[in-house]
């Protein structure tokens, strides 16, 4: 027999396998999920969940798809959270100091409680990346927030009403578009393509007899595997 535990889904008791994640346990209990279920693998942020173990004061949070059930776990899902998402035009919004003050002034009301960081299922230093945003260091904010899956748990715990994931994606887009060093080889390639020579090469290849293409494929040279030990510039 498999090990079983008792959990409480929205207060109602169910017996489920001890090895199950919260998501699998809900389905085991008979739920056919529409809300609160997405990629089922920790990438989409659909399954934010709040829980408390009986007798424990601490309120815990996690993703239902990748948090194992525990005995006497009281579970409520958070499939939607009303974020503040400001609209902006990325073509004209520059990474200037005052942009956060204009779009997300509430970040300057952060009281430093660190509840956001404690809540993050990705274990990001959320309060720190908000601090970077406050001082206009969008590069650091972008990098520190990069692994954010926008589940919104941080925002649900914030006494200052900050929508951290929305602040972070603004910083990342500003970094990606304006602050990251330019890929000159990409621009060169696009310019090179204008004269049509590279297109002609593709067409020449396409129009060869299939046996010739097969031969070319099977004998093509493969660039040396050993990738350069490159560092992302921190």
């Amino acid at each position, binding site marked *: 027999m498999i090990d079983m535990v008792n959990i409480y889904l929205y207060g109602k008791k169910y017996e489920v396998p001890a*090895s*199950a*994640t919260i998501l*699998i346990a809900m*389905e*085991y209990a*008979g*739920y*056919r*999920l*529409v*809300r609160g*279920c*997405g*990629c*089922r*693998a920790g*990438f*989409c942020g*659909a399954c934010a969940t709040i829980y408390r173990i009986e007798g424990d004061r601490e309120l815990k949070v996690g993703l239902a798809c*990748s948090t194992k059930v525990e005995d006497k776990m009281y579970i409520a899902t958070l499939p939607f959270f009303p974020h503040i*998402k400001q*609209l902006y035009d*990325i073509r004209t919004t520059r990474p200037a100091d005052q942009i956060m003050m204009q779009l997300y002034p509430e970040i300057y009301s952060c009281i430093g409680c660190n509840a956001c960081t404690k809540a993050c299922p990705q*274990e990001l230093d959320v309060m720190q990346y908000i601090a970077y945003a406050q001082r206009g260091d969008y590069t650091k904010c*972008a990098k520190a927030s*990069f*692994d954010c*899956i*926008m589940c919104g748990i941080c925002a649900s715990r914030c006494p200052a009403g900050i929508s951290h994931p929305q602040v972070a*994606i603004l910083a*990342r*887009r*500003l970094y*990606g578009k304006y602050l*990251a060093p*330019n*890929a*000159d*080889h*990409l621009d060169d*390639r696009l310019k090179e*393509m204008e004269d049509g020579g*590279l*297109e002609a*090469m*593709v067409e*020449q290849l*396409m129009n060869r007899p*299939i046996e010739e293409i097969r031969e070319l*494929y099977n004998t*093509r*040279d493969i660039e040396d*595997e*050993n*990738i350069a030990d*490159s*560092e*992302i*510039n921190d």
Partner: protein
Amino acid sequence: MYTPEMLASIQKVEATRQVRMATEPDRMSAEEKDALLNAYHPDFKTECFTEIKVGPNKGDKAPTELAALLHGHSRIRHAYINLKNIDYDVDVLVIGGGGAGASAAIEAHNAGANVLIVTKLRLGDANSMMSQGGIQAADKENDSPAQHYLDAFGGGHYAAQPDLLRKLVLDGPGAIKWLSDLGVMFDKESDGRMQTTHGGGTSRMRMHAAADYSGAEIMRTLRDEVFNLRIPVVDYTAAVELILDTDGKAAGAVLMNMETNEYLVARAKTVILSTGGAGRLHYQGFPTSNHYGATADGLIMAYRVGVQLVYPDSFQYHPTGAAYPQQIFGDLVTEKVRSIGAILANVDGEAFMHPLETRDVSSAAIIRECISRGKGVSTPTGFAIWLDTPVIEMLHGEGTILRRIPAMYRMFIKYGIDMRRVPILIYPTLHYQNGGLKINVDGSTSVENLYVAGEAVGGIHGRNRLMGNSLLDIIVFGRIAGQSAADKYPSVSVGKLALTHVEDYEHALNDADVEKQTISPMLLPSYARRQEYDRRRL
């Protein structure tokens, strides 16, 4: 966390590590690959396929699970749909909220169209969000679109539709530029050069990435842009049938609110289907790396209006699905883990193949190693092969795993497995639909005013897709579909709406004596209660 048997096997993996690191295994010859695929690739298990009985692919084979849906009843067979009661009326209706749909919507909107996105879950709930490893594009000096074409055409067994593949490789660099301009954070050197690696079957290092959140980074940026452009998104609303007008042109869709089950009517001058793949059909009982909503809905709806399927019998089993622990069985372990150095090893620690063969060949070789050679590691769900990940940091230094594949580290450490110190267990998982709906190079189909983009399309990649070419295809063909629909809608005047094709299809099934066992499209898989699949995952 590992069983005693697994720990004993790890000792063998550790004992052979230095030798394996010093020797690159040979790649297989074309003949060896063909023989291997024939014997071990799931696409060649003929008993798992069923003949399609009606429609443009009558006589062709599809997986039994997909054929059942193609032979299913319409959801609206007994429903009363008032086609005069129009709930939404737009120039461009985009069905599906993944990367292809979002790209299409952005381009159509920017060209001046009145666009509506409907999606059965949320915008961004899609395989696009889960793509980890990267996106290919020939933008380095030693590379060219022709070289990219050769890799993809050969890797796809010379079965790609040449005009589509030509477009894919030629638009690759432009797609990277478009994404960069939207603010996507690609991995770069300090001088701005893109960090690029190999994928299975590539001859040049052209895999661009954003750590191992490549798809998530692209998808969340596209989603943010859709919101910024104020493109309306109706979420938790599935399309359940396409609507034609009395001239037989696409003219909208019947929608269903997933929470209230209410039916709604959307009228549109042009329709873009970007509904994605089918991993949640669990062909041959395989686990899947796919999103919860990957149930082939678009294939079913478009087939009923007469769009042909290309290669409905061709699927991709990703060689490295997580095989242990059971909680993550079938979840994706990105190919990038091998791109940056991890080696495949069997129960005795032997490197039985080159780690970067194409995906179909790698999967077949792993299945052979476990099933036929008895060299797999025993797990609660079957057998598995080691992916020797500590090699990565021995090659490239401490910190490489956290920096380049943080999602993978996170996925395993949650269950007490530190992939920097110990190898991880993998087995093939159902990953991608190589086949799909037939399109022209402008995204149009045989049904006027109907466009398709993304994984729902067949023929771009032939019978096997290379890593990094699907993130590229959703951007390239998503944008093209959006632009084409925007070019087309001003000249369209929609006639009287009709659903007669749904009845006609039902009659055709009756005439062919097909036993209809289900209704379709499926919309979501049913994992409720103690089903076999769930037990295996537990």
